[in-house]
């Protein structure tokens, strides 16, 4: 890649495409784009461009490529792994202006949206018709569909309903060459390789999504929620295992430990007891008869597992309050600690008890508290390592503990990230779960899309990787060369 020294010519060309108001070069304004939800690391981009259409995005990419600028796509900037962290001299392409819902097709249970549409607004647009969009990250009121696709976002209810990859069936992307390409199809089984599976969760490395087709579901007839407290996370963990062993697939099973409960109570005023070791918030849903039956069984199992108390909300408002408590947990922890470091490790569900004890021990050794609020049903931990950045050495110690937590997860057969993505934050830990051959194979995928490594450099892969020439000589079939293959 030849890098031309950036000249004012770039900015002029970019403003010609998107308008001067949407081409940001002012250092003060650029500060907003120095980081995403991972605020500890900041890099000022050279320029931020906010296109309004697919065509504008493609034109911007072509200009950036001509000048050899690295391209960092950005959604709502809520990501927690530094997926939208700029690199020096880069152009950030922000999709926040593209926030229109383009089509609602209830008959085929699909919706076409622009990438800047907020996750919750997808469900809101169809709620009156009795439909919803299933992936529900805790940040769903502020995070956007484009960012959800990049990170393959999950949420509390993916235990039963799956992740973003199971719910996004098509996309318009702008490639690293600045071409506009449609992925997926109107039918359930598109021809050829499953490029949607590659796109979702690719963390901005293979293309910029400018339109997405999402699958929408009928709202279940009934949802039953209950909240149960336990002496410790061991009993709560046993309850989760017991429910699953009984053949129940709950819609969501969220666990909070003592410290997380304390933070939530302080921040939201919800009347949860403070003298407990752990709490579970559980949703079961389905038809009314099925939901009633499974809720009754799950409550029995909670009691058998040693629950101190089981509460059922009296109405929708009480249920909403319980969930508001859970979803505000990260913000709430900000009330009991000036700073915290979030992790996103995954472990086999049956290992919850022992792993939480190891994590607490790792925190104690460093003199730091760790709060846990997480998706227990699928073993997706969110340990929050609390620290005070004003105290010399605490931030570094917290980072060390966070890294140790990932290694604990990997030792127990898990993964370094369940839903936040690898981004810049965890790239260095990829080598804990993948060997050189695995990473090289993933790089094949990237290189098929972006051989110049123009999109989001420095993310996901632990060491910078180029694509180089195609490995070996490709033996093309004569009909393929003639362009006649596969035409029926």
């Amino acid at each position, binding site marked *: 890649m030849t890098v031309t020294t950036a000249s004012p010519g770039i900015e002029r060309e970019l403003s010609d495409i998107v308008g001067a108001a949407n081409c940001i070069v002012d250092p003060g304004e650029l500060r907003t784009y120095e980081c995403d939800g991972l605020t500890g690391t900041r890099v000022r981009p050279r320029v931020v461009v906010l296109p309004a259409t697919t065509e504008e995005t493609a034109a911007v990419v072509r200009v950036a490529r001509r000048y050899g600028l690295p391209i960092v796509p950005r959604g709502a900037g809520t990501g927690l792994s530094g997926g939208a962290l700029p690199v020096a001299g880069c152009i950030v392409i922000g999709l926040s202006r593209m926030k229109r819902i383009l089509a609602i097709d209830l*008959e*085929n249970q699909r919706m076409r949206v622009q990438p800047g549409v907020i996750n919750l607004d997808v469900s809101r647009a169809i709620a009156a018709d009795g439909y919803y969009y299933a992936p529900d990250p805790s940040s769903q009121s502020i995070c956007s569909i484009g960012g959800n696709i990049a*990170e393959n976002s999950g949420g509390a209810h993916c235990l039963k309903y*799956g992740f973003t990859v199971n719910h996004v069936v098509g996309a318009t992307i702008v*490639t690293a060459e600045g071409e506009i*390409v*449609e992925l997926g*199809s*109107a*039918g359930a*089984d*598109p*021809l*050829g*390789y*499953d490029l949607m*599976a*590659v796109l*979702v969760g690719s963390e901005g490395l293979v293309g910029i999504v400018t339109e997405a087709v999402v699958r929408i579901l009928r*709202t279940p007839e009934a949802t039953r929620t209950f909240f149960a407290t336990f002496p410790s996370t061991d009993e709560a963990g046993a309850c989760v*295992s017991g429910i*699953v062993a009984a*053949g129940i*697939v709950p819609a969501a099973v969220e666990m909070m430990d003592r410290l997380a409960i304390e933070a939530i109570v302080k921040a939201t005023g919800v009347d949860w007891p403070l003298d407990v070791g752990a709490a579970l918030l559980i949703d079961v849903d*389905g*038809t*009314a*008869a*099925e939901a*009633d*039956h499974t809720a009754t069984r799950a409550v029995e199992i909670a009691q058998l597992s040693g629950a101190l108390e089981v509460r059922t909300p009296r109405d929708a408002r009480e249920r909403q309050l319980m969930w508001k408590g859970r979803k505000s947990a990260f913000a709430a922890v900000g009330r009991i600690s000036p700073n915290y470091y979030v992790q996103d490790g*995954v*472990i*086999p*569900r*049956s290992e919850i008890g022992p792993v939480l004890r190891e994590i607490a021990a790792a925190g104690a050794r460093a003199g730091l508290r760790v709060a846990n609020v997480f998706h227990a049903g*699928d*073993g997706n931990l969110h340990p929050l390592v609390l620290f005070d950045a004003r105290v010399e050495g605490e931030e570094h110690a917290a980072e060390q503990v966070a890294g140790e937590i990932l290694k604990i997860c990997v030792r127990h057969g898990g*993964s370094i*990230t*369940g839903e936040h*993505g690898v981004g810049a934050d*965890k790239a260095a830990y*990829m080598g804990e779960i*993948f060997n050189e051959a*695995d990473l090289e*194979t*993933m790089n*094949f*995928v990237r*290189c*098929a899309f972006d051989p110049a490594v123009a999109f989001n450099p420095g993310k996901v892969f632990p060491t910078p990787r180029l694509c180089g020439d195609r*490995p070996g000589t*490709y*033996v093309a*079939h004569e009909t*393929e060369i003639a362009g006649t293959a*596969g*035409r*029926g």
Partner: protein
Amino acid sequence: MTSQADDLRERLAPASVDEAAAMVRERAESGATFAFAGGGTELALGYEPERVDALLETTRLDRVVEYAPSDMVVSVEAGMTLAALQTTLAPQRQRLALDPALPERATIGGLLATNAFGPLRTRYGTLRDLIVGITIVRADGTLARGGGKVVKNVAGFDLPKLMVGSLGSLGLIVRATFRLHPMPERERWYEAGGLTAEGVRALCRSLIARRLEPAAVFARLEPGGSHYALAVLFEGFETGVDAQGASWLESANAAGAQIVDAGPEGVRIAAGAAHPRGPVRIRISVPPAAFVETHRDAVLPLGDCFEAECVAYPTTGTFLLGGFVRDGAGSRAVATIAAARAACEALGGSLVVADMDAALRGSVDPYGTLPQSFPIMRRLKERFDPGRRFNRGRFLGRL
């Protein structure tokens, strides 16, 4: 396939994953080309491979690598049959929620490579929704892994899903890890016969309107070719299943359908009926709301030409036909398939000829119009298998 036999120099049957990798690696220098076979149930899918020096059979890779019932995750080698896997899981009352054709023969690797499915996709999706980890042998003989053994995992590109449906053209699948589902306490099929295509669509809409959650829905074209019998499976806990069944019966009765309560025995009967077989097999994928148009513009014309069974999965927009060319219709078959395909493509879908007899092969393209994203697919193939050693020429676009 005769041309395979012509070139074929060796048949390989590795007993371990490492041996499979070594076999590919040792033949890398010579540029030997490979075809792969599991249970041999879908060998005709795609184009005929251009050259096959070695046929590698995975059937000896038939072990359970790891099974953690409490985590509802299982890792198996690719040559294990689906039936053998289900037998392993059954004592724990767990299952892989997949019901494709010929489970006694079809292997895990083959099912993944061909993206095989059955009526349970209505609720559980296809293998892309069930796979969480994979190990492949690359064309250079290197073993590579993607995903892991936990269900929720976003570390790195999703190689497991990329391999689903890739027909062994990017790598040889040797191991896979799946999420499992509980075996339901109760399963109950209901069948409503004598429905027009409009009737099928209307009943499916009423399923959604009533917020019922069937595990499987499929419609069999009845003899005569104009009416369907719609089979619906409810599963779960007894009270829930019975309540859903009652609601469904009410809805079907209101539509004037002839109801058959297939009862517990129906499970076995229905599973066999959901996979039409025959020397010619066609798979159509369209938007579900285009059920009536697809029936009219593709299924009916094909029925004139082929003596075929037709099964549709109306909630996913899938039609499967299996049978043979009617006496005297041979000359029309190619044009009929082309016209049906054009109709499906006009609806935004596709028509794949998954198997065909010798008379059609050569005149009928298996896939149809290439997607706009095909150049990216070609570049993927170039990166994974630059020498085109794996299933050369078999996949979409003769990759």
